[in-house]
């Protein structure tokens, strides 16, 4: 573990990503304290509509007269919350399904992986839009819709890795020595595929953020006046190009957050997966 | 007779994360025209790096040649620039260790042969109509015949993965011969092959060398294979030359304890193979004095302090050891 931390610190890309992530997370956690006008983030101030950036509102105000800077940093909480929930449930659903289907390899495996393949057979976003629409726009339905559509990515990866590792000598010998199935799965297989899962997860974080912002952008995310980045960008479209600052702030916030994760993920892949190291 | 290949005091290091690794240390050797020389040693003894140094195929950023020179046919291969480049693939060619990996899997065997022929071989004698392409194909087919690949025309249309291991190595041999070289460097050419095919390929190498007067520098960890075909054997240990044996000294007269132990580790009917205990010397921190001393049964104080200087006897037998086994031609000196 300390070795991993050392290599992350020694890896420029991973370190840059990590620093961005720490920054974004810190802002999200401390958002109510940092936001200059937290009370003005979700209420209507007709006299302050669409003001360009100034000393009073450093990123300007939106169509409701709310302080965009406050909304953007409060929005970080929402984005991180949705992403964390979706990624966690993706891992919690997908990894065990992949492990079980891969290890036991019975009719159940075919059924489970069949469901996964079905969900992967169509653009995820269409499925997610359909589910969110059925459930009505809210944070909960975004999380549920994305969890349902994204777990197959982990399931497929873990399934494939488990299948190939089951043929390795050390797993075969553990089985031959009479270790119980669960023991083999948790002590022999899981530790060996953990790095692939970690790498896949860092990639998934960026994808999930885009997907949740896309749902917000299409009007399916948390309802207004929630400070959701995708919806803020969508709202700004009517006021372009005059209110250029309106879309700029949430767009940049989304960009920085996704960038942090993808840099960190790239670095982590270099560190954990020696096969791809030469691409670095 | 002047030497075709002459290596003097070659020292080579690789830069690694843990500091410089000394891969070759003061290597001297010569190869005469038409001679078959075997470079024998364990993996890590530096034999492959030596072969690569001659071919200019060392990993560029890591490799550092501290001193020494390599002259091939009078050209400095380390600092020769264009002149050295034009020798590679013409005067000296290469048979690699793993023929499957050394082919590009996406191109037909014929295409890859044709490119070697086109860019490296001396212009083929043109036919009456001056069709160079046709002449090249004829030359290729003749060469495939020479390496005992029958029905070679059909072979040209196949992809590398469709050939057997033996066929692939024969094609590699043909590619090495097409430029009509004076020397072939063969880096463990039989390592990837079945035992029966190994014997055939070795026989072919020997015959080709004899027929065409090509010198062969042949690296192997298999002393037995070297015994089969070589005129001279150079035993390397940890980047240094331990012993150079002329053909006459092959069996009874090896004098270096390491060669003796290698010989004893060969399986033979009626005798258990004896392994060599201990680990090969680390190139990062080679032991002082004689590099073999930690594993040597004969080691004494002097072995731990001073590097043994090579002593040469009249028949060309060279040994670098403080306590060599007694040989008829020269007395052991302690």
């Amino acid at each position, binding site marked *: 573990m300390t070795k991993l931390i050392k290599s992350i610190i020694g890896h420029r890309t991973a370190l840059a990503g990590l620093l961005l992530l720490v920054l974004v997370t810190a802002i999200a956690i401390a958002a109510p304290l940092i936001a200059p006008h937290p009370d003005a983030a979700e209420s209507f101030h007709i006299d302050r509509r669409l003001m360009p950036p100034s000393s009073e509102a450093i990123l300007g105000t939106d169509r409701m007269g709310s302080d965009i800077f406050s909304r953007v940093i409060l929005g970080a909480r929402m984005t991180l919350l949705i992403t964390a929930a979706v990624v966690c449930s993706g891992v919690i659903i997908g990894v065990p399904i992949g492990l079980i289907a891969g290890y036991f390899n019975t009719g159940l495996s075919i059924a489970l992986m069949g469901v996964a393949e079905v969900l992967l057979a169509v*653009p995820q976003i269409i499925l997610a839009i359909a589910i969110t629409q059925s459930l009505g726009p809210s944070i909960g339905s975004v999380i549920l819709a994305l969890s349902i559509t994204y777990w197959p990515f982990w399931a497929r990866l873990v399934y494939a890795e488990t299948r190939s590792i089951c043929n390795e000598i050390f797993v075969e010998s553990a089985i031959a020595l009479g270790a119980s199935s669960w023991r083999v799965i948790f002590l022999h297989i899981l530790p060996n595929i953990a790095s692939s899962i970690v790498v896949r997860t860092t990639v998934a974080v960026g994808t999930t953020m885009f997907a949740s912002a896309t749902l917000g952008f299409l009007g399916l995310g948390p309802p207004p006046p929630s400070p959701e980045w995708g919806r803020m960008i969508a709202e700004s479209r009517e006021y372009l190009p005059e209110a250029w600052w309106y879309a700029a702030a949430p767009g940049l916030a989304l960009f920085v957050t996704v960038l942090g994760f993808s840099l960190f993920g790239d670095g982590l892949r270099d560190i954990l997966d020696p096969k791809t190291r030469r691409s670095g | 007779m002047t030497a075709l290949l002459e290596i003097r005091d070659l020292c080579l290091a690789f830069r690694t994360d843990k500091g410089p690794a000394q891969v070759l240390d003061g290597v001297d050797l010569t190869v005469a025209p038409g001679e078959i020389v075997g470079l024998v040693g364990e993996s890590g003894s530096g034999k492959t790096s030596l072969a690569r140094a001659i071919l200019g195929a060392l990993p560029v950023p890591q490799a550092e040649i501290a001193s020494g020179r390599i002259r091939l046919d009078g050209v400095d291969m380390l600092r020769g620039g264009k002149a050295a480049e034009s020798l590679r693939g013409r005067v000296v060619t290469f048979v690699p260790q793993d023929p499957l990996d050394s082919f590009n899997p996406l191109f037909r065997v014929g295409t890859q042969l044709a490119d070697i022929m086109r860019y490296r071989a001396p212009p083929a004698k043109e036919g009456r109509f001056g069709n160079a392409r046709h002449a090249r194909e004829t030359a290729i087919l003749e060469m495939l015949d020479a390496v005992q690949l029958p029905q070679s025309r059909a072979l040209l249309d196949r992809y590398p993965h469709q050939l057997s291991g033996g066929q692939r190595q024969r094609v590699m041999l043909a590619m090495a011969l097409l430029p009509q070289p004076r020397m072939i460097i063969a880096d463990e050419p039989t390592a990837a092959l079945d035992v029966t095919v190994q014997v055939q390929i070795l026989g072919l190498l020997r015959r080709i060398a004899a027929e065409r007067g090509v010198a062969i520098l042949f690296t192997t960890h298999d002393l037995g294979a070297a015994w089969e075909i070589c005129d001279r054997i150079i035993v390397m240990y940890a980047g240094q030359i331990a012993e150079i044996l002329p053909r006459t000294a092959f069996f009874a007269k090896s004098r270096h304890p390491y060669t003796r132990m290698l010989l004893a580790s060969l399986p033979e009917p009626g005798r258990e193979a004896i392994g060599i205990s201990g680990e090969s010397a680390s190139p990062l921190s080679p032991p002082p004095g004689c590099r073999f001393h930690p594993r040597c049964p004969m080691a004494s104080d002097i072995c731990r302090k001073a590097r043994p200087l090579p002593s040469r006897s009249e028949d060309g037998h060279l040994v670098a050891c403080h306590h060599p086994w007694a040989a008829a031609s020269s007395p052991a000196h302690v």
Partner: protein
Amino acid sequence: MNAYSVVANRLVWFLPTLLGLLAVVFVLARIVPSDPAVLAAGENASAEQVQETRDRLGFDRPLLEQFVEYLREVARGDLGTSVYTQQPIIRDLAERLPATLELTFVGVLAAALIGVPLGVLSALHRNSWLDHMLRLASVLLIGVAPFWIAMQLQMLFSMQLGWLPLSGRIDDVAPEAVTSLITIDALLAGDLQLFLSALRHLVLPALTLALPGGAVVMRFTRTAVLDAVTSPSVAYQTAMGLPRRVIVWKYILRSALTSTVTQLGLVFGISITGAVVIEAVFEWPGLGTYAARSILHSDYNAVMGVTLCAGIVFAISNLLVDLLQMVIDPRGVK
């Protein structure tokens, strides 16, 4: 595997997958909180009219029965009628699919044209400032949300500079539909003006797809070229003295393209996903806008039609990638 077994294998998986997909969407559509019969009967329908619609469309029968009935209709080529457009859904799809295909195809083509040369350049000048700049640019582009790129492009090129149209697919009446790809139809009709107009409409949405797509292609190509450069076959060709230009532009490029083609299928998939939201921004009359609108209006027959259509397009693109890979890689599909 030969071409037949590749196609057969895909088909074997394709039908059950499609069936499963339809079942999922079918169930989803029926748990929509709003009553589909109310929507289908229209806004001002009386209670009797709603009941009549419900009977006519069979909304009160068991789910499984409805599903089987639906499948039967699909098998006859009848996807039902859209509640929103009041048109047969198959006709809606036929009108919109070409728009999406045109956009995605141009986007992926542009991504390949941008990504492949830059990837090769980046790999050949590994660790130079050019390589670092290109890699930085690719990380940045992959990190930007597609709809945000779309809006920035609109703001710059349409609103401020006025060079390109803000949205839509064509200014005037569309040319006579032959392929339904407007650019090609305009050329077929010999109407250059129309062709240019269609092209101008395509630029921004296609660029929105191509920027992140090109960044992805560039990364893949760079990795593939680096893999090829460090491969044993290139080491062999270098040792044999083949000219560098032949090694790079004949052998390495071909190896790199083989893996890039496989990745292009992936990029196509990403692009179709991106198309949903990009079409919304550019009001591009394609499948994405149709899907979003159908979902928002609970037009579930249309949603199922879109899903079916997207599944088929996905499957066909995967099949094409498999076949293409088989053509360019003689070792066949992995």
